[in-house]
């Protein structure tokens, strides 16, 4: 291990996960209702006090959404950063966020409800990702990574153009604010069933990335090295991309566009556990979940008119990213 010699690889990931869950519990218990943790645990099994039941019903879904989305975005970001050996790669690399934004905006324009909007966002995100991967597959030979980045930019630009068109023709007094608010990102819309629905694709993508593990390290050495080591680079890379795009789409469908978590969390985790995929991805996911819960708590601290999480994550994430960058550079 690069940073913590002598500590088994799984320890930081488990410690960070416990920390994220503990912070989530504290957030649930604190606030005007003031529920003791034991009461809350009883409420999970339907035998708690009315206050505990209320706290769980009001805050439970959005906390679950924050944990899921934070972890999914961070895991996808870590996956992309390893695959492309580029520290600036983020979950939006394939244009997934823009595609999801376009899907949601079109749904809102047509007057769809929350569930349909999220489904449209999910499909839009996956479609943009598929477009990027499909275009890149048309190029033969050369460095496959460069083709993917360029095709991701193209898919993202197309989706952004569509989004601009939707915003232009949206009715300015009802539809436009709804679209804008969705694009800024928030965990407050999530109901329990929606948060749980995001959990399934996010968990599926996570399983795939974790199984890929050392294969991601091989892919990060480049296609020729991967093939020389006896692995088929192209199929593995497409599997990894699909898993990361699935995780990103799940998160964006529930929470809207929440930036920076996918960029920031892997960098923070890298400081502790180093570059190896099998160690970095779980730790990055726990860090992302923790960051999302904290940001969501901060967003609701500004009174009844909550700030969009997407705004806060950028406001907090950008300086934090700079700090991490300086710390990393000084170590090197």
């Amino acid at each position, binding site marked *: 291990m690069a940073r913590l010699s002598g500590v088994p690889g799984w320890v930081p990931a488990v410690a960070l996960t416990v920390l994220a869950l503990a912070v989530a519990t504290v957030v649930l218990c604190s606030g005007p209702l003031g529920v003791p943790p034991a009461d809350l645990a009883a409420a999970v099994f339907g035998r708690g006090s009315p206050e505990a039941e209320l706290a769980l019903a009001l805050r439970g879904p959005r906390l679950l959404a924050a944990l899921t989305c934070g972890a999914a975005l961070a895991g996808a970001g870590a996956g992309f950063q390893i695959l492309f050996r580029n520290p600036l790669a983020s979950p939006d690399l394939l244009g997934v966020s823009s595609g999801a934004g376009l899907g949601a905006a079109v749904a809102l324009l047509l007057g769809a409800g929350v569930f349909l909007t999220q489904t449209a966002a999910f499909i839009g995100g996956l479609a943009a990702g598929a477009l990027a991967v499909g275009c890149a597959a048309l190029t033969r030979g050369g460095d496959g990574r460069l083709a993917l980045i360029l095709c991701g930019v193209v898919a993202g630009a197309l989706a952004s153009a569509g989004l601009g068109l939707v915003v232009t023709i949206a009715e300015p007094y009802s539809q436009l604010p709804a679209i804008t608010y969705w694009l800024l990102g928030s965990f407050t819309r999530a109901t329990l069933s929606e948060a749980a629905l995001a959990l399934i694709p996010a968990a599926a993508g996570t399983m795939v990335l974790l199984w890929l593990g*050392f294969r991601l390290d091989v892919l990060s050495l480049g296609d020729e*090295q991967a093939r020389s080591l006896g*692995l088929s680079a192209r199929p593995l890379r497409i599997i990894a991309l699909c898993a990361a795009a699935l995780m990103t789409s799940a998160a964006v469908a529930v929470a809207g566009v929440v930036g920076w978590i996918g960029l920031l969390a892997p960098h923070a985790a890298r400081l502790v556990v180093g570059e190896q995929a099998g160690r970095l991805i779980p730790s990055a996911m726990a860090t992302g979940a923790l960051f999302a819960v904290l940001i969501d708590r901060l967003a609701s601290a500004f009174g009844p008119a909550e700030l969009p999480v997407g705004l806060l994550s950028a406001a907090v994430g950008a300086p934090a990213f700079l700090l991490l960058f300086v710390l990393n550079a000084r170590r090197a």
Partner: protein
Amino acid sequence: MTLILEQLVAGRRGFRLPPLDLAVEAGEVVALIGPNGAGKTTLLKTVAGLLSPLEGRITRPGPAAWLPPPGAVSAGFSALHVAALGRAGRRRWSPALLPEDLEAARAALTRLDVGAVADRPFDRLSSGQQQLVLIARLFVQDAAVCLLDEPLALLDPAHAQQVETAIRTLADEGRVVIVSTHHLPFARRADRVLSLGPDWIESASPAAALAPDRMRALFGVETAACPCCGHAVG
């Protein structure tokens, strides 16, 4: 246990090497020499299976591994993990590398005298150490055919000597080894030299291949010494 090339034409779009017939026995070290741009890397990659041959046939005694020149591989994780990834092809469906893979990697690193840097990030090592780690990976991978692209470039004499010893060990353990190089004293000590000119390929003993008239034909220079280090090679 023989690598057989039959009328092999390597190349890329708009670039063809002359056809090559060659049989290399396990245990043999073949040095591949020729001017820049003659197609040494293209030939090695074709034999490794990374490029498809334009014509002809390759019969390999087993899987082939290709190593790029020093400095071409970059990895943020530990040297130990880089060496252990040599087993990636054997763990195709396994969720993780096995403890025995890490043990094999550590043993190979220790054997090549880089055991002390096993836990340091690969990118922080010197070019010489990186090259030794990658050759250790060849031992861990245990490919039947090892193709090394200028493994001695950028290395100081001490590291070059260590790398050359390791290359000889790769062959002595029963592998086919082909090494491209501009370091002619190394070619002199190889079992056979494959000279790659602008429109001809010939395979000969080191003494014949490095004779002044062949050097003139190959590089267009009058020399009885290595153009890269000045050592006498004849």
